[in-house]
């Protein structure tokens, strides 16, 4: 617990706050429309539930700007005593999130590459260790980074349409950071997690349910309502007891990540600076463009 408190104050010192933006907390000047449009955050003080709706066309990709903005929002929610639950979902049809912005990983700007991984680790930590009850309302494809968002939550509900969810980093020529490997194993178990990660498997809803990657599969138009119902159920449990329990259960994974953050950032930086990785990424991007045509 002390470790987490220390980390939080450290994170506050180090957090980038280049952009301020309009949210329902009633904030200040809007310096960048791009960031303000990436997601919508609404809070309902009666129920204590916040909903984060990703809305960044075309695939809710997680860029340095987007992740930074999300980190700020998560921190604000954490500090807001009236909010105890968070649902993460998407308003873009068929897409939950396609993961990290590939154009920032392919032929990257060296200066921002390290920063990108730093804020990504920060995002994982904030979401994974959040005192809020977190539920992912997965109403579209949740690939790589998108799957990470879902894995960090307390509970995952997926739409029954043939959307795919999984960590396909190896298919793209990357290794996911260790904290994400841990998240996957923590959810689906070691045997299944190893296989899924090594093969970069993407799962349809029924399969995801079977292996425990998601907890529920419901009709597309029932996803958000089911998420609300689930958050309310979790909020019935005495808050402090639930929060302390969550903290204790997730502590080993969090400690491991905090101890290795710099190492992990270096690893991702070096991996992406490698010619072979860049080539595979380049081919992958080219194939995506071909698919569009």
């Amino acid at each position, binding site marked *: 617990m002390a470790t987490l408190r220390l980390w939080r104050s450290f994170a506050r010192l180090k957090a980038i706050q280049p952009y301020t933006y309009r949210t329902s907390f009633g904030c200040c000047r809007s310096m960048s429309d791009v960031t303000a449009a990436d997601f919508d955050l609404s809070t309902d003080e009666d129920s204590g539930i916040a909903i984060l709706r990703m809305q960044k066309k075309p695939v809710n990709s997680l860029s340095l700007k987007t992740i930074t903005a999300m980190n700020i929002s998560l921190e604000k929610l954490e500090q807001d005593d009236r909010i105890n639950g968070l649902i993460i979902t998407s308003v873009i049809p068929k897409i939950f999130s396609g993961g990290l912005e590939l154009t920032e990983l392919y032929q990257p700007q060296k200066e921002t590459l390290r920063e990108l991984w730093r804020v990504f680790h920060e995002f994982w930590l904030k979401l994974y260790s959040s005192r809020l009850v977190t539920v992912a309302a997965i109403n579209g494809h949740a690939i790589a980074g998108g799957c990470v968002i879902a894995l960090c939550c307390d509970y995952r509900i997926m739409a029954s349409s043939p959307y795919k969810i999984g960590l396909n980093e190896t298919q793209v020529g990357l290794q996911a950071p260790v904290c994400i490997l841990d998240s996957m194993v923590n959810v689906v178990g070691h045997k299944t997690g190893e296989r899924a990660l090594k093969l970069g498997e993407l799962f349809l809803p029924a399969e995801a349910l079977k292996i425990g990657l998601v*907890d529920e599969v419901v009709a597309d138009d029932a996803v958000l309502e089911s998420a609300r119902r689930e958050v309310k159920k979790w909020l019935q*449990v005495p808050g402090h007891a639930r929060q*302390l*329990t*969550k903290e*204790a259960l997730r502590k080993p994974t969090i400690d491991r990540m905090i101890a290795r953050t710099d190492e992990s950032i270096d690893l991702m930086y070096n991996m992406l600076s490698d010619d072979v990785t860049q080539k595979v990424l380049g081919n992958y991007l080219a194939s995506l463009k071909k698919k569009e045509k």
Partner: protein
Amino acid sequence: MALGSLSLALRQLQLSSRSFCPRASLVYRSHAELIRRYATESANLDLAVDSASGIAVLQLKRKPVNGLNLEFLTELNLTLEKLEKDRQVKGLIFTSAQPKIFSAGLDISEMYNPKPERMREFWRALQNFWMRLYISPLVTAAAINGHSPAGGCLIALSCDYRVMASGSYAIGLNETLLGIVAPFWFMDTIRNVVGQRESEKALQLGRLYSAEEALKVGLIDELVPEKSVLDHAKQELLKWTQVPSHARQLTKLALRKPTVDKLLAKQQEDTEFFAEFIVKDSIQKGLGKYLEALKQKK
């Protein structure tokens, strides 16, 4: 592996298990008195050893709900120690003589308006009981013939095997529902049985599983009609005792000792944490409310 080194390993196991006994001090003197007072009384439990199979059946019978208080835990510790020293005994089954209840867990009266010294003794007795049971050289099984929340669930989870009666009994670690937090070693125990994912849901929601649900997630190993629970437990233990004991015991120890060591390393700290936590106003209030609600039910 040479027999010599096997025996040495087992001797080390026996030696380390002695460290679980209360240390000599003021505390020990009162424990000695407790030992003399309760060793022969057995108001709280019945013990039957079948010398043919080497299987002991320990029936919990502390009215009304097999609640674990300081005296009961001390007696359980001593009984376990006695059984482990008895070369004839190879396996142990926990079951209940109280209808519809396996064990309701920790006696709330030990935690509501507690006295500082007794509260610490109580917690130490619970820690020692869990540590001893969790790595016991005996093959252990829980024949769950009643409701098994919180501490009752812990006893079951600490065994090698769990058979539960089909029907309306529930089992789980429901501490959060009472506004308290299960100790980390409770969490470790359930995690080792059902995995991280299920544990997160189980513990945060304070979930009490039906027998069917418990089987589905692996919280229990077998689901049978109530009248067959004890027999199935015995059948299973007979299988386990076929395995060469030295090998099985060392394997169990290797697999489970890291979990126990985690508590051993900070036993004092854990006791102090409990002592500080349980006397908090919000916690006491929650416990008080729960006791009130129980009284109302009656």
